[in-house]
């Protein structure tokens, strides 16, 4: 099953696990991105994610399709938080499954790498003394 979700509420894994993998799959790889307290030497209080949702969905669908086709995944679930996210909360959850493990590892890493390149979502960090938009490549 393939699924793309943007959600304001915390990501809880319990609801997800039952959807992942078929009896054909010997491997499931998950990637969880979490909000760190420390960023570029500054203490972060919390984050906010802004999203261009219609475009983000299209870009994610392209990434998902490429990964599913290339590595014959049986599951590809991608969940991204939007809005305010607290320290140590999950900002992104990716789960993929495939008959053998090599494919799942390659796919999970490909998906998060591509998301960080092209999906229109922006992170704003909030500190004790202000806030800042983060632009990874600027």
């Amino acid at each position: 099953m393939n699924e793309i979700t943007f959600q304001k509420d915390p990501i809880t894994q319990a609801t997800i696990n039952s959807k992942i993998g078929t009896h054909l799959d010997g491997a499931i790889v998950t990637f969880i991105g979490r909000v760190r307290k420390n960023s570029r030497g500054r203490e972060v209080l919390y984050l906010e994610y802004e999203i261009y949702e219609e475009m983000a969905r299209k870009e994610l669908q392209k990434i998902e399709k490429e990964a599913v086709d290339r590595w014959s995944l049986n599951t590809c679930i991608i969940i991204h938080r939007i809005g305010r996210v607290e320290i140590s909360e999950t900002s992104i959850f990716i789960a993929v499954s495939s008959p053998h493990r090599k494919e799942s590892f390659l796919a999970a890493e490909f998906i998060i790498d591509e998301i960080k390149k092209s999906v229109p979502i922006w992170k704003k960090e909030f500190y004790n003394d202000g806030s800042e938009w983060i632009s990874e490549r600027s």
Partner: protein
Amino acid sequence: MKITIKTFAHFKDICGFQEKELTVSDNITISDILREITRLHPEMHKHATSVLCAINQEYKDLNYRLNDGDKLALFPPVSGG
């Protein structure tokens, strides 16, 4: 012709709008529009080399010529994930 411009993240702060309808001349490029925006909001200048552009939710480069009804989005490098 009429187009819509959307901005995100710090570009929204700099330009002071999130979405705007604009009447522009035929054959205008993204580059032309960006030049005009930078004239109005000089702080955009330092982002000139990193700005990303999309038309109707698809990435395009600066040479793209807009059509009537196009939705242009201007935004900084993404930082999700």
